[in-house]
């Protein structure tokens, strides 16, 4: 029969040897995640002078009344780096609930008592948060275990399945030894991941960004509060920081780098590949209140002499931009901006249509040196989704999109 046991109940449980003599009481329990991710591998028992270690296969039975052994060869406890101690390392700490996409604090742990190959083992089933587990903690050791169970029964449980729990460990070596990976975090939506890292302490935060895939890190980083972005990048190795910045959209990358101390941002730039580096450097030239600092240098421009087919071909060469693209731009041979075509129009036009015929309405653009307040006005007045930016000679150099405007306005 399968039964539940809480960690608060396990603590202080009396341990009896083969002849029914009491050896001591349970002081903590530990997993060895490299061997088994959920089975309690060692029980630490305090009795007399020092702590003893009981291996899981030395146990005959575990009940609410005590633990009975089937083997008495116990070893003294010594700390072992491969051991995740529940009382020390898990209880009262923050972990990430990957399923609920939030940071929670561990109040208690629920085990399943199971018979496996002739021994009684405990497997972590859930991590408990919420009122019910607070109650257990408060009365643990004060009231008898069965009373506490009765007392808590009217309160709805609030638990997270162990498979959905992600422990955050800043030390990479320890992470390896405890078999902790952040791969579940990588699968979250970047915006959710950003919310989660904002709730963690700086060390935990930095360890996540240092460890996860640069592309995911870049997406999550652009959702994080700007000042926090800067402190995260500063804490990372320049090489890793450069990898993340490369994956970001150039305008966002430039914004983050502008927040950093000049020395640090220079270090990061040095590590970057030539092409993204040049783009970002160009954007960094603009001051914060100029249109140029808002713009993105990733856009699709086609020669004005072309046809709809040419435009579609140009799009095919820029597939990574498609998710956010809403218009393409026409330029002349010298790069001067000549018009904008909404993507939708291109979609229904016959391939041979000259692009000039698809241009919608009068062309609206701003100079890169224009004050950003003017940019907001233009967006509002003409209800734009995007706005091309030109240099002093009228050449297209970037585009500002509505989502950039929204983030800037929200921060203001």
């Amino acid at each position, binding site marked *: 029969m399968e039964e539940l046991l809480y960690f608060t109940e396990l603590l202080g449980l009396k341990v009896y040897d083969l002849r029914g003599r009491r050896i001591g009481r349970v002081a903590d329990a530990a997993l060895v995640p490299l061997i088994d991710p959920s089975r309690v591998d060692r029980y630490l028992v305090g009795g007399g002078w020092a702590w003893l270690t009981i291996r899981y296969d030395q146990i005959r039975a575990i009940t609410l009344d005590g633990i009975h052994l089937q083997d008495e060869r116990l070893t003294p406890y010594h700390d072992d780096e491969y051991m995740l101690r529940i009382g020390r390392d898990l*209880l*009262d*700490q*923050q972990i990430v609930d990957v399923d609920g996409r*939030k940071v*929670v*604090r*561990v*109040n208690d742990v629920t085990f399943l008592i199971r018979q496996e190959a002739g021994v009684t083992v405990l497997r972590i089933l859930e991590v408990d*948060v*919420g*009122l019910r587990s*607070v109650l257990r*903690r*408060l009365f643990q050791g004060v009231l008898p275990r069965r009373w506490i169970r009765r007392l808590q029964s009217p309160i709805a449980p609030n638990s997270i399945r162990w498979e959905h729990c992600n422990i955050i460990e800043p030390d990479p070596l320890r992470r390896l030894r405890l078999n902790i990976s952040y791969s579940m975090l990588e699968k979250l939506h970047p915006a959710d991941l950003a919310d989660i890292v*904002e709730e*963690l*302490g*700086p060390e935990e*935060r930095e360890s996540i960004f240092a460890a996860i895939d640069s592309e995911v890190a870049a997406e999550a980083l652009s959702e994080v*509060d700007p*000042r*926090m972005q*800067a*402190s995260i990048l*500063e804490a990372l190795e320049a090489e890793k920081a450069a990898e993340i910045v490369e994956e970001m959209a150039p305008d966002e990358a430039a914004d983050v780098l502008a927040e950093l101390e000049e020395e640090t941002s220079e270090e990061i730039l040095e590590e970057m590949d030539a092409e993204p580096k040049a783009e970002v450097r160009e954007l960094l030239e603009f001051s914060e209140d100029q249109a140029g600092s808002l713009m993105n240098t990733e856009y699709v421009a086609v020669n004005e002499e072309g046809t709809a087919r040419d435009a579609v071909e140009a799009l095919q060469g820029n597939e990574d931009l498609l998710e956010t693209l809403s218009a393409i731009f026409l330029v002349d041979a010298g790069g001067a901006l000549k018009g904008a075509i909404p993507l939708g129009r291109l979609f229904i036009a016959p391939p041979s249509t000259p692009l000039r015929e698809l241009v919608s309405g009068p062309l609206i653009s701003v100079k890169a040196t224009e004050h950003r307040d003017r940019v907001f006005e233009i967006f509002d007045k003409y209800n734009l989704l995007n706005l091309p930016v030109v240099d002093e000679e009228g050449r297209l150099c970037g585009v500002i999109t509505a989502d950039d405007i929204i983030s800037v306005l929200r921060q203001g």
Partner: protein
Amino acid sequence: MLKRIRRQIAIFFTVIGPGFITAMVDNDAGGIFTYSQAGAKYGYLSLWTLAPIALLLVITQEMNARMGAVTGKGLSDLIREEYGLRVTFLVMTLLVLTNFTNVMANFAGVAGSLELFSVPRWVSVPIAATLVWILVVKGTYHSVEKIFLGACVFYVSYVISAFLIRPDWEQALAGSVQPVLMLDPDYITLLIGMVGTSIAPWMQFYLQASVVEKGITEREYAESRIEVIVGCVTMVVIAFFIIVACAGAIWAHGPRDIEDAAQAAQALRPFGQYAFALFAAGLFNASMFAASILPLSTAYSVCEGLGFEAGVNKSFREAPIFYWLYTLLIVLGAGVILIPGFPLVRMILLSQVLNGVLLPLVLIFMVLLVNKKDLMGRWVNTRFQNTIAWLAVVILIGLTLALLGISLRDMMR
């Protein structure tokens, strides 16, 4: 160089908020009453305590700001992680009780100040409670902080009303720098009360949590520290003007006891409608301000410490305990003010007693935490900082325990 300074100033403005708001809320209805009493009964004598009070405040608040910036965690989080759930539960229970009596005192301040303008309390208190509740539940962190910073500006009303009264500025300056101790038990009680009302446990939790909430990190810590210091200094400057106003208006015409802060405002009437109205409006502003912050800060600290969902950006269903606690503190705190014959003075004495139990605990935890290398890294207290911190803690604990004794004695009467 110029760019560097401009950058520094820009950062200062982005970190402004936590330290300033905490210090201003410290001048709540209870604080204003204590300072008014000091001025009314002893004139300019007690002004010298303000500088040491500012120093003690800076020493304690700086540690909180530092812990918040370095660990990114609130004080209740840290206590929970390092000392476990039971200790946290005990601290949180005491915090809820002290803050509840504080909320009550501030709704009493709202009632008293508006009664001076002939608004009956059964009108003012329910409206104030509703406004406070809505402000936080419907607002975002940024909008709420802006409103709070706006409320800080209104403390100027005390400065103006002090000038309107034309107190004896020479005596005021002399009193500020010349320590006077008398073996008058009431005077000593008052001095202890002034310190007690200035350094309250809720501030430590609130300041650290809002430093974290604002996303201040090690990088901006230098600016954040300046902000904390500026806030503390501003706070005692306001206290100075309250004492001076009451000294000029009441003490100069015959020293006497006052029963609440509204009475102090009343005594300002002979000096013209403006002096009176500004003092009363200042009291209203301060009471509303504190009544908004205390329930919120309490609910946050408790939920974070005990691991319940918290935050105004979460729905009622997501964070039920947070919202219940917040709502109950406001409803009960405002409700008891409307009960005729409610023993408010006794409750305020009780709050001093609870304060006396909680503050030593909190301060000791703080100094222990700020010395933990694994939490603070290179930001742990230096030996010099530790000497000062422990000294401040010992002084504060001594004074708080003395106040506890006095309050217990008064309660027995």
